[in-house]
């Protein structure tokens, strides 16, 4: 992997990314959260997979918690494992981490079969378990030092404290930290052995929006350090914001997988074009005659379903051709929430809340 410096075209912030020559990556600016694609200069090489899961299954008595799932996570990407509570996310990630024993299937971490060689890869991975709380009477620095000393390969604690913005809290006892800081310490703990893969199981659950943003920043920084991140979450926004690659799990099965744009393109609803205060009553009929699905509100506002954003121009050209005027237009694309709704027939956030 090579280091590549990238200047955000939006805010000008410089960020460092790691990747293989020729590799195109979706990146998020750590300063302004603008997303974009960059291509690492040089000849493209094959990507190796950090995590390979094949036909994984977990059965508890009559309950199939994880049902024959397979996926692979490329080295250096943030992989979001998205699904509602009870979908099988934690069971899956804990089988990958060898915390649970699979009923069937195979798992490879960094090319090593975990069934026989998990002890060999322990030094190269790190996890943040769900609802993790560390030793209450250790300070932040002691917590990091304790876990660091369990490994042969150790990252510099001072650098981690600085990177995670924990320097001012290093002498505080863990139990006295806020929820957001505790999660930040949890993520920091995941770096003490300078791992190649970091597993973060619901790292922002229960945090307020500000604390959640702080943790996102930390996770985004992991990608910039070239770490492979396996993130389980039930927050759509989190997956949209952070992930290069998303797998949606529902009732123990992966129902969709790909980049955010792939998923929206494949499973999202059509783009909707809102035409505000159209000055002609003929407009809906005109557009229907052109083959568009149109809905008129009766007060002049019209919504038009279109397959691609490119069709916007076609709609507007048709109106202009007939000299029909309007006050304005708004284009709304699909998002992950709609993808999930379409795939499962349920809203993720509602399922979470109930």
């Amino acid at each position, binding site marked *: 992997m090579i280091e590549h410096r990238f200047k955000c075209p939006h805010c000008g912030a410089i960020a460092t990314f790691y990747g293989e020559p020729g590799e195109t990556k979706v990146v998020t600016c750590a300063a302004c959260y603008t997303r974009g694609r960059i291509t690492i200069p040089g000849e493209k090489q094959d990507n190796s997979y950090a995590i390979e899961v094949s036909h994984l299954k977990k059965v508890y008595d009559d309950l199939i918690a994880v049902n024959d799932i397979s996926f692979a996570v490329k080295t250096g990407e943030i992989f979001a494992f998205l699904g509602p509570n009870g979908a099988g996310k934690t069971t899956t990630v*804990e089988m990958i*981490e*060898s915390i649970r024993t699979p009923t069937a299937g195979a798992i490879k971490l960094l090319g090593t079969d975990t069934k026989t060689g998990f002890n060999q890869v*322990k030094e190269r991975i790190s996890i943040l378990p769900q609802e*993790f709380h560390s030793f209450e009477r250790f300070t932040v620095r002691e917590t990091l030092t304790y876990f660091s000393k*369990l*490994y042969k390969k150790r990252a510099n604690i001072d650098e981690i404290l600085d990177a995670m913005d924990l320097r001012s809290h290093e002498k505080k006892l863990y139990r006295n930290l806020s929820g957001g800081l505790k999660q930040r310490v949890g993520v920091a703990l995941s770096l003490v052995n300078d791992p190649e893969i970091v597993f973060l199981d619901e790292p922002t659950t229960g945090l307020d929006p500000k604390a959640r943003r702080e943790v996102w920043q930390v996770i985004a920084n992991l990608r910039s350090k070239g770490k492979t991140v396996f993130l389980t979450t039930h927050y759509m926004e989190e997956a949209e914001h952070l992930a290069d690659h998303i797998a949606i799990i529902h009732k123990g099965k992966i129902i969709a997988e790909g980049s955010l744009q792939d998923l929206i393109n494949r499973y999202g609803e059509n783009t909707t074009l809102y035409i505000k205060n159209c000055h002609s009553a003929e407009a809906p009929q005109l557009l229907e005659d052109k083959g568009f699905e149109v809905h008129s509100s009766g007060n002049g506002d019209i919504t038009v379903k279109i397959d691609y954003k490119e069709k916007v121009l076609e709609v507007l050209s048709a109106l202009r051709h007939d000299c029909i005027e309007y006050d304005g237009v708004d284009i709304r694309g699909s998002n992950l929430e709609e993808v999930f709704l379409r795939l499962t027939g349920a809203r993720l956030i509602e399922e979470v809340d109930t």
Partner: protein
Amino acid sequence: MNLKIVGIDFLYSIRSWFRSRGTVFWSLLFPVMLILLFGAIFSGMGNSKYTLYVQDLDNTDMSQGFVTILNKTGILNIKNITTNGTITDYIKENNIKNLIVIPKGYKTDITRSYTDPTTKVNLTYYFDPTEQQTNQVLRSVISSVLEGLNMQISQGRTVVGLTEYSTVTENFGYIDFFIPGMIGFTIMQQSIYGSIERNTKFRKDGILRKLLTTPITRSEWILAKMLFMLFLAFVSTSVAIGVGIFAFGIKVNINLLTITLIIATSFLFSGIGMIIGRFVKEEETADMAAGAISFPMMFLAGTFFAVDAMPSIIQMIARALPLFYVNEGLRNAMIYMNQSEAIINTGIVVVFAAIFFIAGVLLTKWKED
């Protein structure tokens, strides 16, 4: 086995423990408070009136006059006893601590001493040497009374003397009984609750899952924690013995059996804690379960009071409890120097420890189902 990792975990455990005021209190200060409290109550500290039993074998106006003088000092609670058996058996049976015997012929001898200066009469004073403060007061009172009496009879020449005997063949008091019990109880509490914390709270907090994915192995971690529990056990034992020596003047023998018992006790109750932690997942419920096991054991196993004084059914129950053998073993090894009994007690505790600790280790899992 990576002993460096074991050492790191051990040192961090001590640091963490020391920061918990509650744990330090319950581990060290609470037992000290109990020792001082029970020691004060049952060792005679704080008494304003001292009981002195009197056996008047002479039963004459002169012997009764002596008893009256003792009574008039105002600080003695005189109790007359009559027995036809031997006085030592009577003392033992009735748990008498201080007794003075006025011999038959007391009046005759004193009368003879007026004409024969060589005639003497000796009173016999039986005392409990473990109750030093009481002894000091009683000796002082009796000596003063005798001094006055001798002055009256012969202008100071000793006619009425005092011969002292210990009321017990072994110089042991309640505090000698109590401190080993307190040590056993403290190690039991530390081990059970420490083990439960590691197996329920750490599981709930995800610490065990985190550790499972680090290079530390389960056996290294258990070894580190057992070293820490042993450290705590020896610290609390030292504190209890220190209080016993400095506050109550007990004599303690630290020998191989004592050390073996302390180690075995720590393993025994850690094993019980592990078993509780395996079957009771919630921390609060596990604490209650630990309390339900440890508190009855504390009272039934002879920590505070001798099991022999309890009803026979309770004695049977006590002999089925591991803490009973811990307490008895510590008393025999540390205080009574009854090595043969101590070996038997230690053997029983070691067997209990092996069974419960191995079962605990086998039942304790870091992996989730």
